[in-house]
Every structure is written in structure tokens, then in C-alpha cells.
């Protein structure tokens, strides 16, 4: 394999992990825009997606498609329960208190997953076989195509939701001006709940589609969550294209760094980017000052 082919290979696999980061990052952004808090439990819903799919598929012998659907449902419910029990009861908490609560929540969810499913690493079958597909000079696994397709569909749906439905516009209204949103009759607390539901659903889908490639265990949420957070920071907490590009850029840089230098640097890259962005462009790469978020 020559260097060109190798690069193409790195970029392709980088894009597919990047798509995962993008999905997780958009979840961060949606909750942040609705509530002003950073939900550090987001990664745990990613983990729940993969682990619950494994549980339904391997332990309960449910067909894969059904297992995926059930796992998404379970994780979404977990997001809703999390909001109800951990976020809503705190009426006058400051954002920083809530952020700390989400960190506590993430530790709790991880602990419960460990008790339920043990510390082992589990694998899931790929959705449609392991026959590599040649694409230019690079090979793609069918699972990569699944990842691209699912990400694309989810992002397009969320874009349509936020710009063309009254509920989507209402959620944006809450993020721009909560008080005014209440005064036009929007139930702000319900929108917050809704934002948790959407982002836990997105996170769990990310966890499900990546699990066949990377395996899954009770603690995968920590790293994936941080990568998604990084994607959202690069994207300036946009719940749209900004964060998607943020995820893709992060994924590609990681893959290039790991391939060309050493795989030991892979995780460090995300944190270096995170720090650079926070120091140099805290509003994200793509945002012009204080403008729109969606």
C-alpha cells in the first residue's frame, strides 16, 4: 500500500469515527442549548445503547434489528428518567451545580451498568457482514457505511425538526429566551425533558452503530462522551453542521495522528484540540461571535 492509499484509509476510518463523535456532540449541544448545562452523562447513554443491544441480542436472543430498537428505547427512557430524577427536582440550582449533578449521574449509571452486565468487554455482530468494499484505493467495511448512513439520516432529521416544525422552533425559542418562551405558552420544562430524550436517543444510536467495530463495555461512555464534547466545542455548541464538522475533523485528525505517528497519541489529540479551541476560539471554529446556534 502506498502512502496515498494509506492516507485515504486513515481519512475514511477517521470520518466514520468522526461521525460517531458528531452524533454524540449534537446531543451535548441540544441539551446545552435548551438548558445551558453540559450534560456529562451523555457518554453513558452511548454506552447504554451498545450494552443494551448486546444484552437483548446475546443474552435474550432477540433478533438484531429488534435488539437495536429496544436498546434505543431503553436508553431514551433512561435519559428521560435521568432528567426527571436528577435535573428537574433542582429548581434553583445554578448551571455549575447541575453540571456536577450530571457527572454524579454518569458515575451512577456506569456503576449500575457494571453491576448488571459485569466488567467484560462484549462484541456485537456487524449489521451486514464483514465483506470489505473497495472504494478508490481504500477499503470500507459495510459497518462504516451504516455509520455514515445513520449519522446522515439523524442529522438531516434533526435539522428538519429544528427548522421546520413548530416543536423544533419552540425548543430553539427556549434556548434563545426562556422567559419569553414561557410567555408565549411553551412549557419550558417539557422542552428540557424533550431535549434529554432526543440527545439520549442520539447518543445511544451512536453507541449501537459503533459497537460492532470497537466492542463495548460498561466504561466506553467516558471516552466517547469526552470526544463528543470535544466535537461540540469545536462546533461552538451548534446543534447542526458546526458540531458535525467538529466531529469529522476530530475523527480524521485522530486517525491521521494514530496512523502516521503512534496510536498512543490518539486520545491525546482530542484533548489538545479541546484546549486549543477553549483558549483561542471559545465560540467554536465556525461561529462568528455571538450569532445563531442552530
Amino acid at each position, binding site marked *: 500500500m502506498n502512502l496515498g492509499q494509506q492516507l485515504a484509509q486513515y481519512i475514511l476510518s477517521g470520518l466514520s469515527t468522526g461521525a460517531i463523535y458528531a452524533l454524540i456532540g449534537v446531543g451535548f449541544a441540544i441539551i446545552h442549548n435548551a438548558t445551558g448545562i453540559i450534560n456529562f452523562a451523555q457518554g453513558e447513554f452511548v454506552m447504554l445503547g451498545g450494552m443494551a443491544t448486546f444484552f437483548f441480542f446475546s443474552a435474550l436472543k432477540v433478533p438484531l434489528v429488534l435488539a437495536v430498537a429496544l436498546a434505543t428505547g431503553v436508553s431514551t427512557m433512561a435519559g428521560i428518567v435521568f432528567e426527571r430524577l436528577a435535573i428537574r427536582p433542582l429548581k434553583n440550582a445554578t448551571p455549575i451545580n447541575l453540571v456536577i449533578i450530571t457527572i454524579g449521574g454518569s458515575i451512577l449509571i456506569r456503576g449500575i451498568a457494571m453491576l448488571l452486565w459485569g466488567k467484560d468487554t462484549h462484541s456485537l455482530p456487524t449489521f451486514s457482514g464483514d465483506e470489505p468494499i473497495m472504494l478508490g484505493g481504500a477499503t470500507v467495511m459495510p459497518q462504516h457505511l451504516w455509520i455514515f448512513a445513520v449519522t446522515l439520516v439523524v442529522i438531516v432529521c434533526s435539522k428538519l425538526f429544528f427548522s421546520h416544525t413548530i416543536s423544533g422552533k419552540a425548543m430553539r425559542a427556549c434556548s434563545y429566551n426562556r*422567559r419569553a418562551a414561557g410567555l408565549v*405558552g411553551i*412549557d419550558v420544562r417539557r422542552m428540557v425533558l424533550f431535549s434529554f430524550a432526543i440527545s439520549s436517543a442520539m447518543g445511544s444510536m451512536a453507541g449501537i452503530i459503533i459497537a460492532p467495530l470497537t466492542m463495548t463495555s460498561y466504561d466506553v461512555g467516558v471516552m466517547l462522551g469526552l470526544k463528543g464534547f470535544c466535537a461540540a466545542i469545536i462546533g461552538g455548541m451548534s446543534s447542526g453542521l458546526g458540531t458535525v464538522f467538529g466531529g469529522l475533523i476530530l475523527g480524521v485528525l485522530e486517525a491521521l495522528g494514530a496512523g502516521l505517528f503512534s496510536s498512543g497519541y490518539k486520545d491525546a489529540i482530542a484533548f489538545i484540540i479541546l484546549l486549543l479551541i477553549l483558549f483561542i476560539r471559545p465560540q467554536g471554529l465556525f461561529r462568528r461571535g455571538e450569532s445563531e*446556534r442552530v
Partner: protein
Amino acid sequence: MLKIKNINTYYGKVHALKNVSLHLHKGEIVTLIGANGAGKTTMLNTISAVTPPSAGNIIFEERDLAGLSPDRIVKLGICQVPEGRQVFKPLSVEDNLHLGAYLRYRGREGRAEIRRDLDDVYALFPRLLERRKQAAGTLSGGEQQMLAMGRALMARPRLLLLDEPSMGLAPLVVQEIFRAIEQLRQERGTTVLLVEQNAKAALRMAGRGYVLETGKVVLEGLPSDLLENNDVQRAYLGKDKKEIWER
């Protein structure tokens, strides 16, 4: 229609409304005047459940509003046009208006009906029609005020709470807005509680008025009586003592 009895509202330790009582009959325009910091905005926010009262009752059409959240108040037919407009800046003018009808969309009301009201708002404020695709934050102050009014009207309120709708506007625009308020009352029988700095104009239009001073109602009556009252003249109509003495 609205009956407020002995309301007390606090911001932490600040006692912003002290045993305030007031009432509105159906189809009435009532104005609430008072100096800066008197508690006018607090009064409206207390009705809208943004700053719930710690004591007292608010009864709207035989219903106690205690414990309801702001969106429930809107659902009952009470809409507020808040001080400082508070439009959703990054959203387009038209989206802002659609959100005004949020509960009607949720209530599965016919789109045609909502569309007709949208056209009515555009007829009332043609400027908004010209700018319908523009982000609300890029409108001028006066245009934003029209948008805030239009957004509230999209909910088809039976009681409209207006917080200084004339603030910072050119006299011609103020006239336009006041004309719109009067028209609403005549055509739809909308009841209006109007908070104004522009006391003279407000009293001219209103059926009754209340004067609020440091969280208390100090005067209540017909506009003509209030306009004649020396204290009101001195404090809110810009006439100084000398002028009053000389009369």
C-alpha cells in the same frame, strides 16, 4: 374578569408588591401607571406566573391561578407583551409570529384559522410583512415592539397585558400601537391591562386607571379624575408644582 386580591410578591428580600388589589371587567382597558421601580412590571409578571406571589389570590374568570406555570396562564387566555420586547432574535419574524400561536398549533387548531390571524397581524403592522423572512434581532426597536405585539395577538388572548408598549418609539408609531389596542377592544372585546410611562396617552385611552407607588396602589379611578389629581399631574404628567399652584 380578572380579580386580584391582596397580592404580595418578593424578590428575595425585596418586597416588590405590597397587598395590591385590582380588578378588570371584560372588554375594559385599564392602565397601571407609576414611577420607575414602582412594581408595574412585577405586577404583570405576577399575573403571568413568572414571579409567583407569596400571598394573595388572582382569580381569572372564576379560576384561581395559584400554582400555575406561565404556559398554563397563556393557555387560559392571558398573554403578556413583556417589557423590552423579548422577541426570539435569531428566529425570523414569521417564526416569531408562528410561535405566538404555539398553543393553537399544539391544540390541533386548523391551520387556515391561524393563517388568517397571521394575515391580520400583517395587515395591522405592514412593516412586519415586508420583513417576514428577516431575523427578529435585526429589526429596529419599533419594529420589534410591533412584532412582540403581533406575537401576543397570535395567541388570541382574552386578556392582554402590555408592558410599556410605547417605550422608545416615535410618536407616530406609538399612535399606531395605541390605535391597534383600541381596535382590538372594539373588534374582539379583548380586555387590556396597560402599563405605561406615557401616562397621558394611556389615561386618554383607558376606562380606568391605577397608580402604583413603591409596591402599593395609592390611587384608583376614572381617567378624568386621575388626570385632575395633583399628585398624578406632578409625578407623571410632567407638570411641575408651580404650574399647579398658579392654576
